[in-house]
């Protein structure tokens, strides 16, 4: 029977060994327990004994070679027929598989505005975030009174207390059968119908009041010559790519904000939190005639998006806003808002800052007016008036003016909007 001699595991940590010296040669007799080969481990040199009696018939690993533990290094043959040992098969009962119940999963916290690289974080306790999610509250609209401006349960409760609808539809008022008829006080002077404000409008109302009463607004306007921008738009259209004037504005704003991080920030009490991502909120007015509310879906990380990508995102967001299909992800994390009334022919207007954002850009229509060129000749010009409303706690006139100048520069050198990534 041929017995394999293997590189033995001479220690818990041994992985390989070196054959140093064969103490027997091929053809030599060897008895069990006799030293057969000298090996080197990571720790020491040891003599290895043979486990079999017989003749050394093969040396497979020669001196100087290093092999892994378990490698066959030689063969000893006792030249006898192999006798199969009687093996008693024992039925062993493995213990029953134990199923360990998983520990109770944590009460699941609401998923944060996810999937986007670093939207601005709101300072709110985990509980406040859960409550905001449950009540569909935009945390950026809630003022925090905790340490560092942290929003807590009380702040949410306060907010809810001021924003719950007070009107009740008649059908839901239970009438007790035997109750006496309630005395109806005559309603004086009002010939109107009291239309209850929707939750969204209430939220907007609350936000606007808060913004106007806490953020000292100031306004800076600038006219921007849009001829080249319109040329760019036409050029893209000729190649089958549709971009709106608003898309051009968004791209230019993103580029300009990259140079003015102070305007891409949120006010946080005693500090201004500058955001890495430029998440542009687009004001979308709902309703064909009467206002049915205002939504500001967010296009995140515009600093990473090309003009065409911004156009696609904007188109999608506006469409979803109009059809009521915006989700929580769309709504949060805005750092700067752009509001456009140009489609109505408006010349200019001043928007209200979407606190805690620092500023908002309001633009009117592009109007065709005569202007003078460098040689004092009259030329046709396409002017757009851009007005920035800003929070004077964060910024000042000079900074906003410089921002507008930069914005103007990008729009007037419009082809940079496609080449600047």
């Amino acid at each position, binding site marked *: 029977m041929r017995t394999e001699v*293997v590189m033995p595991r001479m220690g818990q940590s041994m992985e390989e060994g070196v054959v140093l010296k064969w103490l027997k040669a091929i053809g030599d007799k060897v008895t069990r327990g006799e030293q057969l080969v000298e090996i080197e481990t990571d720790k020491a040199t040891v003599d290895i004994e043979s486990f079999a009696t017989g003749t050394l018939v093969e040396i497979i690993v020669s001196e100087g070679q290093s092999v892994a533990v378990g490698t066959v290094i030689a063969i000893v043959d006792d030249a006898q027929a192999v006798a199969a*040992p009687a093996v*008693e098969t024992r039925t062993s009962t*493995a213990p029953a598989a134990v199923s360990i119940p998983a*520990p109770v999963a944590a009460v699941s916290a609401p998923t944060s505005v996810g999937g986007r690289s670093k939207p601005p974080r709101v300072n709110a306790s985990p509980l406040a975030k859960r409550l905001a999610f449950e009540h569909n509250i935009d945390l950026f609209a809630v003022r925090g009174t905790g340490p560092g401006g942290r929003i807590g349960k009380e702040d949410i409760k306060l907010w809810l207390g001021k924003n719950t609808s007070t009107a009740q539809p008649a059908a839901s008022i239970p009438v007790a059968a035997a109750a006496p008829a309630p005395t109806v006080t005559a309603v004086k002077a009002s010939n109107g119908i009291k239309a209850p404000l929707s939750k969204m409008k209430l939220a907007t109302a609350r936000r606007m009041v808060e913004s106007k009463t806490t953020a000292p607004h100031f306004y800076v306007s600038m006219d921007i010559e849009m001829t080249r921008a319109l040329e760019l738009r036409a050029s893209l259209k000729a190649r089958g790519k549709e971009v709106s004037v608003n898309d051009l504005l968004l791209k230019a704003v993103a580029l300009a904000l990259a140079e003015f991080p102070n305007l891409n920030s949120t006010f946080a009490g005693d500090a201004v939190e500058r955001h890495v991502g430029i998440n542009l909120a687009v004001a979308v007015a709902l309703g064909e005639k009467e206002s049915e509310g205002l939504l500001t879906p967010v296009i995140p990380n515009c600093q990473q998006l090309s003009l065409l990508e911004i156009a696609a995102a904007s188109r999608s967001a506006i469409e979803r806003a109009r059809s009521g299909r915006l989700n929580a992800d769309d709504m949060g994390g805005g750092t700067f808002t752009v509001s456009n009334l140009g489609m109505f022919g408006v010349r200019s207007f001043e928007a209200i800052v979407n606190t805690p954002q620092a500023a908002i850009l309001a633009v009117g229509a592009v109007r065709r007016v005569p202007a003078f060129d460098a040689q004092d000749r009259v030329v046709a010009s396409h002017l757009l008036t851009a007005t920035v409303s800003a929070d004077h706690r964060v910024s000042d006139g000079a900074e906003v003016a410089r921002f507008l100048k930069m914005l103007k520069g990008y729009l007037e050198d419009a082809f940079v909007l496609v080449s600047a990534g």
Partner: protein
Amino acid sequence: MGTQVNWLDLFRLMVRIRYFEQTAFELYTGGKLPGFLHLSIGQEATSVGACSALRADDYMASTHRGHGDTIAKGLAVEPAMIELFGGAAGSCRAKGGSMHIADFSQGILGANGIIGAGIPITVGAALSAKQRKSDQVALCFFGDGATGIGPLHEGMNMAMLWKLPVIFVRQNNHYAESTPRHEYQGIPDVVRWAEGYGMPATKVDGNDVLAVYTAVAQAAARGRRGEGPSFIDSETYRWYGHNIGDPGTARPKEEVEMWKARDPIARFRRVIIEHNIASGTDLDAIDAEEKARLQAAAEMAEKEPKPPVEAALEDLYSDPVLGSRAIQGVRV
């Protein structure tokens, strides 16, 4: 157990231990056994002589080098072999391994990975016997490596103080891992310590199985009579290093060879033949039986299934409900 012990039983047990250890050695160096391996080859006479002088209901605690002691006290080799492989049907359900192998049904309080830890446990078992007014005795094996450890001295003092039936058996193989006596022992002969603690103390040739048997039998009788503890210093030698991985640099090769020539099994074989208890052929037959048994055990044990990993969560507490909570953390 009287003075008439079956010499062939002693012989068989020693041979069984020898083959168990050699088989374990082959398996381990073949990479089949996880963990550590501390062989007791060469010390069979101490293990067998001592444990054979005990009753099945007497207690015994051993060391990290515990295969010989535990097999001598009644640990079955098949479950023990499975345990070395980490099989589900192992003596300790794969939870203990070589260094912690135990069979409480045989009075084996376990091999122990901590030097000297078995000593207070043995004292406690003897205390328990006394409290229950039982004539059980408790034997503790420890190596010469435990010579300086606190619990040895605490244990000797306590056993003497309460007159407990403890048998302290020092397996003196002359080396504490790599350290020889003159580097760990303050006086040449620890029997003097034991005497200093007040108990009868004797030194025996640990490779003479009958001498060990006699000494332990006397100590057990003393213990059962309520006369308190005894100390036996049993001089022996381990053929292999401290564990597999020991580079073999601690002991001179000639010293190892000299002790191998004093093989307790070969020696007892001669004694049996000289006294006409059995013939060489009879002894060869016993040898062959044990060899075959161990070979079969190894082949069988290798094929035994391992427990599911979730079994790691079992056998910690007796109380299943509170135990499950203590392990899991959050209550379901």
